[in-house]
């Protein structure tokens, strides 16, 4: 039977990696993801997990180590946070383009300057267009589940893509929450052994990554893009199986909360969704017609699901926890994609972005109430005043 425990996101992620029977792990210390590796190193030291634990010489080395391991035929895991995520950047395209389905767990963190250890999505979001699956967990339970779901989808031969499995630093990574740990037999039923089509094996010689001519480049890009196009069907299958085997109720791409008859909604992902849920519940009790939509995958971006979910509202507040300096919306990254998703709809909701939770700041209930006022006003006036609100830093809305 499943075991109920209180675990932080880092601890639950390590448990998931153990149950996924990862074979090569590469580490390098940076807060807050470090705790995942601390847990795993104990498991390896105790003999609970039969894996090679390699101390990387930096995040670039970490990604290189798991690239080699996964290309040789071993299930591989690494992870990082903040500037560690960006230090490894060179490797992201070769790994995705080489179609090596390794996993990187990111407990996110603000980028420098100045040194700030708080949570922010910008580190991982800066890497979102390289051909990796990517999504955030709201709870330690979801962090656990996303590890297994992402290995299954990424390793599927119809997809073969690496995975950024993200959680908010501290809010998820370090605050314990209830986690239901399944039986190993359930995990084994869900996740087949790692099976790369063309591993590096002297018995079957193969060359990985020869140079190409410029005119050969597009076709490879099309294949990588196609893998992303093919991924949603595989994600749906995996989520169906996951819900069946583990008794969960995940929606594959967008989860709706109290959206029946809602006129306004928050759109967000990750840890702050939990506070938003409470805010929505309290506001509902006061008669405000509000709901929320939670995003589970940033890549592949679920265009139709987002459009469908948001089309029924009059106004949507996109809660951004990342920056896109100089971007079209002048704020974060998500509103770009939300607006693009809504563009083809005959009737679009009003949308605006709320810059909140940057640098690891709390997004409080009061903040969500304030955002609600902005959205309600937009509905009354039939327009949004701005595309971006820096929550807590606006003189007058």
């Amino acid at each position, binding site marked *: 039977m499943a075991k109920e425990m209180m675990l932080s996101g880092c601890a639950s992620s390590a448990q998931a990696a153990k149950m996924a029977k990862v074979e090569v792990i590469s580490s390098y210390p940076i807060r807050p993801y470090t705790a995942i590796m601390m847990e795993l190193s104990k498991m390896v030291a105790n003999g609970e997990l039969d894996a090679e634990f390699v101390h990387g010489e930096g995040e670039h*080395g970490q990604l290189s180590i798991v690239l080699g391991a996964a290309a040789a035929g071993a299930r591989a895991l690494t992870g990082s946070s903040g500037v560690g995520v960006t230090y490894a950047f060179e490797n992201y395209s070769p790994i995705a383009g080489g179609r090596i389905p390794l996993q990187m767990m990111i407990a996110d963190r603000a980028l420098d300057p100045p040194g700030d250890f708080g949570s922010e999505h910008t580190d991982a979001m800066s890497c979102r267009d390289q051909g990796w699956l990517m999504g955030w967990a709201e709870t330690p339970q979801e962090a656990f589940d996303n590890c297994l779901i992402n290995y299954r989808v990424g390793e599927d031969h119809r997809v073969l893509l690496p995975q950024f499995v993200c959680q908010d630093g501290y809010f998820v990574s370090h605050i314990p929450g209830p986690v239901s740990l399944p039986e190993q037999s359930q995990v084994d039923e869900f996740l087949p052994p790692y099976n790369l089509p063309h591993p590096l094996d002297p018995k079957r010689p193969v060359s990985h990554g020869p140079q190409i001519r410029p005119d050969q480049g597009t076709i490879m890009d099309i294949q990588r893009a196609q893998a992303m196009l093919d991924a949603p069907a595989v994600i749906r299958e995996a989520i169906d199986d996951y819900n069946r085997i583990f008794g969960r109720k995940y929606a594959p791409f967008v989860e709706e909360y109290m959206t029946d008859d809602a006129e306004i909604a928050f759109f967000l992902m990750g840890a702050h969704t939990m506070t938003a849920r409470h805010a929505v519940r309290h506001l509902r009790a006061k008669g405000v017609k509000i709901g929320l939509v939670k995003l589970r995958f940033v890549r592949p971006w679920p265009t139709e699901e987002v459009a469908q979910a948001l089309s029924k509202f009059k106004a949507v507040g996109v809660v951004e926890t990342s920056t896109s300096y100089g971007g079209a919306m002048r704020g974060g990254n998500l509103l770009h994609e939300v607006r693009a998703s809504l563009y083809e709809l005959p009737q679009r909701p009003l949308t605006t972005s709320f810059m909140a939770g940057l640098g690891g700041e709390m997004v409080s209930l009061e903040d969500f109430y304030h955002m609600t006022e902005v959205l309600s006003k937009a509905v009354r006036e039939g327009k949004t005043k701005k595309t971006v609100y820096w929550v807590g830093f606006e003189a007058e809305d």
Partner: protein
Amino acid sequence: MAAAIKTQNLAPVKLIRNVPKEEYYLPGHRTCAGCGPALQYKLVAKAAGPNTIFLGPTGCMYVANASYLCTPYAVPWMHTQITNGGAVASGIEAAYKVLLRKGKREGEFPNIIVMAGDGGSVDIGLQAMSAMMYRGHDALFICYDNEAYANTGIQTSPTTPYGGNTTFTPPGSAIPEGKTLFPKDPPQLVIGAHPAVKYVATASIAYPVDLINKVRKALNVVGPTFLHIHCPCPKGWGFDEAKTVEVARLAIETGMWNMYEWDNGEYRYQFKPKKYKPVREYLKLQNRFAHLSDAHIAKLQAFVDAKVKAKPVPVEAAVPKAN
């Protein structure tokens, strides 16, 4: 962590006619006529045999070999970034350890060989190379040294000799000697600071049997090993492509290149001239040194004199300071 699985014992060859006929680095690649690195690749691949995985960090031996979806490799090969040959090799080694331990792969532990240029070894690739040596992975790191970033159009690297004319160190009225720095010493870098390493050697394409035997010796060691192989580059150095081997031999005869093994703390020297020829004889064959004045040559000669007289004590044998 895991017990060593390697049991192979690649036998030394006595004479060039005993060298295996089988090729694992096949003809048809796109290297320049007279390419020193290509010649050493062929010899290394012969020495290692079929149970081998090559890693190719970006450089001439990537771009000119595995070009346009072709491959000259009859054994598994993978491109790595110029930065990370040592780290990717570490991951492959770790994977084989666990896969063999779990019975997911069978047979002999493979020879894992990083074939990196000088930049991919001791410049941008230094961190990953050093980490592989430090962690004790069972892999061979080869620095095939053509003394420049040749693939990108002959720019200076840390192993370009003093006085070298490269496209980033052109001689001019303000900087008449071209390159003003003295080179890094790759094998001493490895020997000096990596206790897991038990075998390091230098080799040259001028002496193929010695090269093959050093490769085999390195591959028989369980743990990280390092070879520094001198590979003249006709295009980069500016000499007749028929003279690659002659230039390589002159480097040894003048003391510009030194042949030795470091075997678990003990030095052994090979092809050490009784009397060194003047470096000028080596320089005069190469356009990259054509601009040097007598004063520059004297400076280079003094550097070589100090180097070849150095006692074989690893830490103290560091390169003398420039100027």
